[in-house]
Every structure is written in structure tokens, then in C-alpha cells.
């Protein structure tokens, strides 16, 4: 909720006058003045409902003479206050000039005590075994306002089901629920998936979900944060630890380009041999990035950091080796190769790692730095005309517009989807333009379609269309691109055309305007700033080097065509989290630390450099990738390895202009944020206050008034699909079988069986029925067997093939192939 601070009104709280923003909610206004009005159902991010009655206050207004409009004075010459005859709910009251509030009277105290007593009549008081105990609003407010004694006969308490799975991830304890409807309102108003509701009434009132699968939302975990009691708990943390045992470490989610601020709650754990491990992932407030929300992938996808498949010890030629020996072998191989060396780095590596790898390659005389996966081009355009400094999606509303093109944002960057949906609810125009029907269509104010291969053309021609005119006329315009169904060349053309349109219509160089892209990984922009490009990756594939350093990139699982050229590389040096297929091929495999075991920085899709901190103990002999690269460099005489990630960053700030002002100290800077999520968990929920830093946003070239160079737009020919062939469109689904997600076993029921969507007309022609096992053949790749999903979402002539669901790799970008039914009669899954 962004209030207009320019206009203020005078209100009196407990006989003291204050200036507060006009129209502000009374609870919020009082909170900002340090007067905590207790609440259960009210939440600053959602509309008030006045259901719990905890925020009752005495409310009055200054009496004015009806005829003259003059303030009426009492005997003492003071303005006369006309009080409401009964207490009023502060949460449903907006401040107005002359409003008079009393929060410290006997009557108010009594009301608070009574409300708590009433709530507790149906509450099991099982705090000793409750996950929420220790950070529970009901517990805290009972201590503060409650009666201390009950008049309720314990034997009369209602006993209800304590273990109702609302889905695979969230459990409901019906006894503990105080029916504040925060979770229901969150799903409806904030998440946009209204899959929770009340059922029955009175004493029988309960939370239900009727979706398939249960509680079908990517944001379900957030309801456990805002639940003011222990009614909703996650399958991940349930009975996992007590909140007061936890050490909370500020971190950044490594799963997608949103860069949600998180807090990793760790504990020294017996089951992990006494090491500190992550017990849960919680959102950490950053109003510019993720507010106080995170998606379920971020919340439950942390298990990979201590998965059984982590590489624990260095390997040389598939045999365990000491780190010193492995580094020496790597250095020797690199020395022998001279400058015939290249690096491919993954899009979720930290800037420090990337910088150290770049130094290593440069020191050997190589400039071949490839970004993985090579699916999205155009990061340079985001650096030029990306969203202006100070952009906040929460500021978008009436008169503003967002164009989402070639992206299934729900699957690629869920929290952006959540925030853009809210912008739409505030009145912004949200246009979703795709070649297929996606989940995003539901969150669009209008949709547009084009054929696969036509996205760049659609964007280039948009100016003349009615849609283009509407977008151009918006006060603020953000274009958010993806790479759904695009080749790398097409994705560059799309970004260029989008950039041109933004420049032409003046939507650059200012906050809430510009280009964003749903890049893969959490640090694709960092890759760009450090000089790694997807084009270089293709060049490496074309002309394989003698020695290839592959860092945190699952080449074999991501791309079926790597086999063709990888065999031509003499030596592979793998810096890897996992003991994967590539580690097996590598001459040297060096275990590196995940985001959870070390500190570092990511640059998110809005170019915000954000810092994460060391949370859990090291795994085996893994070291940070920057250290691995630095030590190899040291062996090659490139100078001493840096002592800390902070020191590496200091180097970066001195050498990369974009990072000027992004030293660790500056990244750790915090400012007060609204709403004030602090220790009183009842107001904002258990999302963490930001103590680790809000990060620093890199200005765009447009922000700084530099000359822009979009480059000549090369719109490639639409690929010719031969007779009997289909377009194979690899897509991103949020829940998949990537190594960085596979270790989260609780998510397995939510990961779809491998499938491909095809149009019903094509299905009829090819004699394929819904649920049939089909084989997809693509030149240069092994056949992919999946179940056919015949629906109205896939356009004619295209096979929508999600990546990372099947065992066999799916091509990185759009290609041509064929689909056929597998011989024997297939069983339709129920």
C-alpha cells in the first residue's frame, strides 16, 4: 500500500496531536507513530475486514456546528469531541482531519482482554508442540493483553482435526485456526489464486480448498507466514525446530531472476552430524524486490544445498584426489593449453565467482567467456534501457502498462507475476502476448497472440497497432520479455525491437519504465556485467577449445547437443556443486560451495546487486568457486588469491564501472521500509526484517544519459518446418527435475510427469489421444518419451515440451522435430 505522503491531516491519539498521511489506515498510521494497535485479521498488505475485533479503539471526531461549520468548544474552551457510543475497529478506519483516538483507556484494555479470552475458548493452547510457538501473534498478544486465566471449562473445548493436508505442502490444524481469513484474502488479493475459502459457518467454520491438486498455488507457503496462529504450517518445517533455536541468515534466492530476499533459518542439527543446516527459508522484506513474499520453489527448494548428490571431494580422472593435487592438475592442463582456453559459467553463479573465472581466463590470454544456458540474449539491452533506477512494481497502477511477451511468467519468475497481477488490480494495463495459451492469460487485462517465430516481428510492428498506441500512451511502461519458443537470435531481435519501442516512446531512463527479462537463473545480469555472453557459448560449441572450464552448468542435462562438441574438448575442468555426468567426463572435478555455504552477490533482473551471507556449514571439501579459480590462478602466477568474497567485490567495484558503489558495506545498507515488519509478528507476519541490506541498483545507460546503441535489428526468417515435422517448443516449468530442485523430496508429488502438449487437430491427424505415450525425435538428440497432453493450449503445428521433466535432455531453444505414438497401446492415467 503506497500512501500519498504529500497531504497530511491532524489526528489525536491519546491526547497527543500528530500529522499523518491523509487517508492512511488508522492501524498503519498509529504503527508509524509507535503506537501498536494489536491485530489478528488486519494485514497491511491486504484489505481490512474487521473480523477479529482485536483492534477496537475509542474513536471520536471534533464536533462542528452544523450551521456555521465552526468547531464547538466545551466549558474549558477545548474542542468538543463527539465519541462513537461503542468501540470501533481501527483497521476499518481511515484517518481524517480532527480524528480523535484513545488506545489506552480501561474500556479498550477490557475489550482487548475480552477478545483474546473469546478467541482462546476454542483454541487448544498446545503451544508446547506448536511450530508457531515462539513467534506466534496469538501467544504474544495473549501475554500482552490476555486475561491470564480462563473461565472456560477445558472439557467443553471443541476438538477438531489437527492434521488436515490442504495440499502436499501446507497442513491445517483446525483447532488452532481463529478464522481471520488472512490466508483466504492473501490467495485472492495478493497471489491471485483464490483456492482457499471458508466452509460452513459459526462454530463449524473451516478453511477448505477444493482445487486439484489441493491448495494449487505457487505462493502457498506465504500463508504460513501471515497466519497469526499455528493453524497453517509447512510440510517442510512442521515439527522441524523451534523458532528460538534458529539462527537467521540474510540470503538471496538462487532460483530465478527476481532475486527475492530470503532469510535462511539454520540450526546446528544432530541429523546433519552437528553441522548448521537450513531448517527453513523465510521471506525477508525488500519492498522493491519481493515485498514480504516468496514463491514455494524458493521456500522449499533449498534441499539441493545438502543433497546426497553434492560433490564432496575433488576428482582427477574419476579418482578422488586432494584439493592441492586437483588444483595443480587443473593448472598444469591450463598452462599446457596456452590461450586455447574457454569458460562456460552458469547463470546462478555469484559475481565474485564470475569475476575470478574471468581473471583466470584473461590471465591466460582468453576472452572466451560463455554464459549458460544460452537461451536468452539481450542482457546488454537491459543494461542500456532496463527499468530505471528506483523502479518498484508496487508503484504501477492506473494509467501504467506492462507488456509481457514470449514469457510464461508464472513459471519463470512467479513473484514478478504476483506483483504485476497486483498492479493490474490497481488499474494498470497488463498485456500478455504469446504464441500459446499460458497460465498468464488469466492475469492479463488483454492478450495478444502471434505464431511461433513471429515474436520479433510482432514487437517490431507493434508501434502501428492499436495495442502499440495504447502502450505508448501509458504513463509508465515496462516491457517484460521471455524466450518462450525463441531461438537465441530471435530473442535478441525481440529485445532489440522492445528497446527501440521504449526509446521511441520515451519510456526509458526513469523509474517504472524500461525493459525487464525473465532470464534463466539468479544472476544472468551478473554474467553480462562480468563479460559472459550466450553468443560466446555458441562460439565455444562451434570451435571447442583445448581446455574448457565448466562452472556450475549442467550442460548434459540441459542440452542434448553438447555431446557433439564436448568430445572434441581435450580437457574439461568442472567446477561443480553436484557429482553429475559432466563431473564424470571431466579431467578435474572441483567441488564448489552453494549459495548457502558462502557469501557473495547476485544481480537480479532489475539489475539490483544483492548480497547473501554464509548460512550453513561447508559440504565436504567444497570451496567457493572464486577461491577455486583464484587458487588455480595463483598456481599459474597470476597473483595471490583474494582472502574473502568482499575483497573480490572490492576488485570488481574498481574495475567494472557498473559496480561502482556496490561494495559489501553499501550492499548491506538498510533503510526503514513500509509496512514496518519488525519483531511484533502480529502486524506483518513472520517475514523477516531486512538487516542484511537492500542492495544497490545499477543505473542503466539511459538513466545516466549515455548514448544508446540498440544495434541493427536482425529479424531471422521463421524456420521452415518440413512436411511431417512439427515445431518443438521447449518451455520452462517452475517445478521440474533439475538438480537444484530434485533434492526437495516434498515437492516430488507436485512435479508433473514428463508430458508434451499438442493441439487437438494435430493429435487427430497423428492419431494421438490424450495420455498416449509419444516419442519426440529431434535431429542430433536421443528420442524423448513423454505422455501426450491434447488440449487447447498448444497452437497448431507445435509441440510444447517442458524442459527438465523427462530424463533425456530437451533442446535449449525452439527447433524442428517429429512426434509419433509409441507402438503399444498406452494407458491413460487417471
Amino acid at each position: 500500500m503506497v500512501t500519498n505522503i504529500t497531504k497530511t491531516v491532524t489526528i489525536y491519539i491519546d491526547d497527543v496531536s500528530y500529522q499523518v498521511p491523509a487517508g492512511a489506515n488508522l492501524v498503519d498510521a498509529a504503527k508509524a507513530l509507535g503506537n501498536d494497535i494489536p491485530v489478528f485479521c488486519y494485514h497491511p498488505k491486504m484489505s481490512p475486514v474487521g473480523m477479529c475485533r482485536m483492534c477496537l479503539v475509542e474513536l471520536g471526531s471534533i464536533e462542528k456546528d452544523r450551521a456555521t461549520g465552526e468547531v464547538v468548544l466545551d466549558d474549558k474552551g477545548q474542542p468538543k469531541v463527539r465519541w462513537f457510543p461503542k468501540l470501533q475497529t481501527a483497521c476499518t478506519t481511515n484517518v481524517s482531519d480532527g480524528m480523535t483516538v484513545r488506545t489506552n483507556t480501561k474500556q479498550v484494555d477490557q475489550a482487548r482482554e475480552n477478545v483474546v479470552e473469546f478467541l482462546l475458548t476454542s483454541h487448544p493452547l498446545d503451544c508446547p508442540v506448536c511450530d508457531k510457538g515462539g513467534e506466534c501473534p496469538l501467544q504474544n498478544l495473549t501475554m500482552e493483553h490476555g486475561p491470564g486465566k480462563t473461565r472456560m471449562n477445558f472439557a467443553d473445548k471443541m476438538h477438531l482435526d489437527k492434521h488436515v493436508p490442504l495440499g502436499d505442502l501446507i497442513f491445517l490444524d483446525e483447532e488452532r485456526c481463529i478464522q481471520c481469513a488472512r490466508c483466504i484474502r492473501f490467495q485472492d488479493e495478493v497471489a491471485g489464486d483464490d483456492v482457499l475459502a471458508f466452509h460452513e459457518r459459526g462454530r463449524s467454520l473451516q478453511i477448505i480448498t477444493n482445487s486439484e491438486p489441493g491448495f494449487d498455488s505457487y505462493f502457498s507457503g506465504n500463508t504460513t507466514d501471515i497466519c497469526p496462529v499455528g493453524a497453517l504450517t509447512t510440510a517442510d518445517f512442521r515439527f522441524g525446530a523451534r523458532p528460538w533455536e534458529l539462527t537467521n541468515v540474510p540470503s538471496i534466492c538462487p532460483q530465478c531472476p527476481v532475486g527475492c530476499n530470503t532469510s535462511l533459518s539454520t540450526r546446528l542439527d544432530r541429523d546433519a552430524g552437528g553441522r548448521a543446516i537450513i531448517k527453513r527459508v523465510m521471506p525477508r522484506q525488500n519492498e522493491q524486490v519481493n515485498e514480504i513474499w516468496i514463491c514455494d520453489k524458493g521456500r522449499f527448494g533449498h534441499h539441493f544445498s545438502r543433497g546426497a548428490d553434492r560433490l564432496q571431494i575433488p576428482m582427477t580422472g574419476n579418482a578422488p584426489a586432494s584439493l592441492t593435487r586437483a588444483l595443480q592438475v587443473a593448472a598444469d592442463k591450463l598452462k599446457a593449453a596456452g590461450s586455447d582456453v574457454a569458460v562456460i559459467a552458469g547463470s546462478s553463479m555469484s559475481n565474485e565467482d564470475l569475476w575470478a573465472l574471468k581473471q583466470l581466463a584473461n590471465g591466460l590470454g582468453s576472452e572466451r567467456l560463455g554464459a549458460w544456458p544460452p537461451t536468452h540474449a539481450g542482457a546488454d539491452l537491459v543494461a542500456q534501457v532496463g527499468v530505471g533506477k528506483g523502479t518498484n512494481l508496487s508503484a504501477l497502477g492506473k494509467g501504467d502498462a506492462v507488456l509481457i511477451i514470449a514469457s510464461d511468467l508464472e513459471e519463470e519468475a512467479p513473484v514478478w507475476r504476483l506483483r504485476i497481477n497486483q498492479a493490474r488490480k490497481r488499474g494498470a494495463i497488463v498485456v500478455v502476448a504469446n504464441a500459446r495459451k499460458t497460465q498468464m492469460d488469466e492475469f492479463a487485462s488483454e492478450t495478444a497472440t502471434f505464431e511461433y517465430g513471429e515474436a520479433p516481428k510482432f514487437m517490431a510492428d507493434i508501434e502501428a497497432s492499436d495495442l502499440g498506441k495504447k502502450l505508448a500512451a501509458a504513463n509508465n511502461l515496462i516491457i517484460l520479455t521471455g524466450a518462450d519458443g525463441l531461438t537465441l537470435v530471435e530473442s535478441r531481435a525481440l529485445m532489440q525491437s522492445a528497446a527501440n519501442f521504449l526509446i521511441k516512446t520515451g519510456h526509458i531512463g526513469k523509474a517504472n519504465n524500461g525493459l525487464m527479462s525473465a532470464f534463466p537463473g539468479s544472476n544472468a545480469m551478473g554474467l553480462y556485467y562480468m563479460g559472459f555472453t550466450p553468443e560466446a557459448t555458441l562460439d565455444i560449441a562451434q570451435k571447442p577449445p583445448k581446455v574448457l572450464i565448466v562452472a556450475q552448468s549442467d550442460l548434459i542435462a540441459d542440452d542434448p547437443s553438447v555431446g557433439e562438441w564436448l568430445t572434441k574438448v581435450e580437457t574439461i575442468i568442472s567446477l561443480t556443486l553436484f557429482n553429475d555426468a559432466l563431473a564424470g567426463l571431466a579431467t578435474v572435478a572441483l567441488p564448489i560451495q552453494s549459495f548457502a555455504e558462502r557469501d557473495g552477490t547476485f544481480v537480479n533482473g532489475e539489475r539490483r546487486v544483492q548480497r547473501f551471507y554464509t548460512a550453513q556449514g561447508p559440504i565436504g571439501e567444497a570451496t567457493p568457486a572464486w577461491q577455486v579459480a583464484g587458487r588455480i590462478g595463483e598456481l599459474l602466477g597470476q597473483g595471490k588469491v583474494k582472502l574473502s568474497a568482499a575483497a573480490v567485490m572490492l576488485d570488481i567495484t574498481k574495475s567494472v564501472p557498473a559496480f561502482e558503489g556496490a561494495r559489501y558495506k553499501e550492499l548491506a545498507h538498510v533503510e526503514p521500509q513500509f509496512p514496518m515488519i519488525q519483531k511484533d509478528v502480529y502486524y506483518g507476519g513472520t517475514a523477516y526484517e531486512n538487516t542484511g541490506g537492500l542492495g544497490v541498483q545499477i543505473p542503466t545507460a539511459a538513466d545516466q544519459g549515455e548514448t544508446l546503441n540498440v544495434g541493427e535489428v536482425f529479424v531471422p526468417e521463421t524456420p521452415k518446418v518440413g512436411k511431417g515435422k512439427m515445431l518443438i517448443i521447449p518451455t520452462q516449468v517452475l517445478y521440474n527435475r533439475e538438480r537444484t530442485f530434485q533434492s526437495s523430496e516434498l515437492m516430488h508429488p507436485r512435479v508433473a510427469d514428463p508430458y508434451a502438449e499438442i493441439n487437438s487437430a494435430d493429435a487427430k491427424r497423428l492419431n494421438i489421444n490424450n495420455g498416449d505415450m509419444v516419442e519426440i525425435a529431434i535431429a542430433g538428440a536421443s528420442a524423448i518419451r513423454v505422455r501426450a497432453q491434447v488440449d487447447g493450449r498448444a497452437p497448431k503445428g507445435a509441440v510444447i515440451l517442458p524442459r527438465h521433466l523427462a530424463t533425456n535432455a530437451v533442446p535449449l531453444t525452439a527447433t524442428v522435430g517429429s512426434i509419433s505414438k509409441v507402438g503399444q497401446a498406452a494407458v491413460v492415467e487417471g
Partner: protein
Amino acid sequence: MSIHDEKYAKRIEATFAKYPDKRSAVMPLLYIAQEEYGWVSPEGIEEVAQYCDMDPTQVKSIAGFYTMYSEQPKGKYWLQVCNDLPCALRGADEFHKQLKEYLNVEEGGTTADGMFTVEHVMCLAACDKAPMLQCNFHFVENLDMEKMKAQIEQWRAEAKAEKK
């Protein structure tokens, strides 16, 4: 069985025509679902949700809130006997008891043949014609057990004829 059945098409169309947006039609459509299935079944909820462009959870929530939607399977004839004070004074309590005995069902129960469900309800605003009951939302008034038995036989015959 489905509310997509042709026999409901006109009614559904007329219902939607009455309201500015689709979700407003949810309650009338739930009645149609109840008529079709004899209760608000999961299938019925799914179908209404599709029609009204709502999440099935919201439809179920509405069905749960209002007592005239039954979320339990009911007999073909859903007999709701009023035994509030005025009716009780005219012997409704006794009538209710005898009716249950005659049909051999518990309160809220359904006969083994799936024909009759008997339950008591609050005031139906026909105190002057007590004992009375409501059968599938239609009043049957000025009852005694003799009349009731005849009525039950008539319903049984009707159901039999319908089957043929």
C-alpha cells in the same frame, strides 16, 4: 448426469441473462446442480465452477454456507419437518417421531431404498397449517400420519412410474 444436460440449458441461459457478471449466477446454478444430483455433489460443484468461471473452492464455500444446499447425498424426497414451538404445540414433534419410525430412519437419515430423507428444520412460516413439512422445497400441510402414509404411497408410485 450433468447440469450440461439439455433440459437445463434454457434455465441456465435465463439465469445468466439476469446478472451483469457470471459469478452472480452461482446460487441459482447450485440449485440446478442439487436438482440434478439430489445434492450438491463434487461433480456439480465442478460444473457450476466452470459455468461461473470461479474456482471450485469458492463454489464449495457458498454451498457450505447456505443450509438449503445439501452437501450430503439425500433421498429422492427430502422431507423437512418443522418442529419449532408453534408446530410442536400442534403435535409436530410426535408427527416427526412417528414419521421416522414409519420410514425406519434416524434423524437426517435416508431410507435404504434411497427414497426418503427425514430431518427437522426451523420455522417454515406455516404454523397455522401444522404439522407440516417441506418436500424438496414444496410445502405439504395439515398432516397427520394417516395422510402422510397415503402421501408416501403416492410418492412411491410416482417414482415407480417415472422409472418406467
